[in-house]
């Protein structure tokens, strides 16, 4: 109730109106948070997905060594 009273005073409105505004703000924030979480989950699942053939084969030590160093060389 304290937040509603403070907001009501700031906006020059009733406490009931402030409660409604706070509730709407909370719902909107919650929806934004859920959207971000959903996007992150979908994207991470996509990144982690690999084909079966790729999942059951492994790089050689030479391939991996070359790959690790290539990021430090000029393109």
């Amino acid at each position, binding site marked *: 109730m304290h937040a509603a009273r403070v907001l009501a005073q700031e906006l020059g409105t009733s406490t009931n109106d402030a409660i409604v505004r706070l509730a709407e*703000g909370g719902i909107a*924030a919650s929806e*934004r*948070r859920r*959207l*971000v*979480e*959903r*996007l*992150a*989950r*979908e*994207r*991470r699942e*996509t*990144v*982690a997905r690999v084909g079966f053939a790729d999942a059951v084969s492994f790089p050689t030590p030479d391939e991996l060594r070359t790959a690790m160093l290539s*990021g430090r060389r000029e*393109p």
Partner: protein
Amino acid sequence: MFPGNAYEQHLLERAAAGEPVALTAPSVLEVAYGLAKAAHSSGSGDAALAWFTRLATSDLVVTLPLDGAGAVVAGRLRAVQPVPPTGLRRAGTKPEQRAGWVLDLQIAACAWAHGHTVATDNRRDFDAISDLVAALYPSVQALEVIDAPAL
């Protein structure tokens, strides 16, 4: 952003509203590097670095880590586009431009993997990165890029 300006005010308001602004870890790295370098070269102390350190390690912002998924995406983006495609816009030597490009790839990948939008003054490069992300992962929503808010 600097102490007392509109961006800091915006950041404080967002934190007070329970929706703190998110910074990617590579963005924090970039700013900390710039402030530390300036402090070393000017010898004028590191008040700015101290201010940013307090901010970046506080609850006023959320720092998005560059974790496994984000790092894989950044690496794949760099392999596809190792140098900035919009070279005309960037200042600095070629190595500096490339270092900036790698940071931008990390920032974009980090934000995308955490489900966030990038707000930037550098629309051309980040729009280009968004296209690269969309080409790599066409089945999911691409990186959203917006202009940094004019405050």
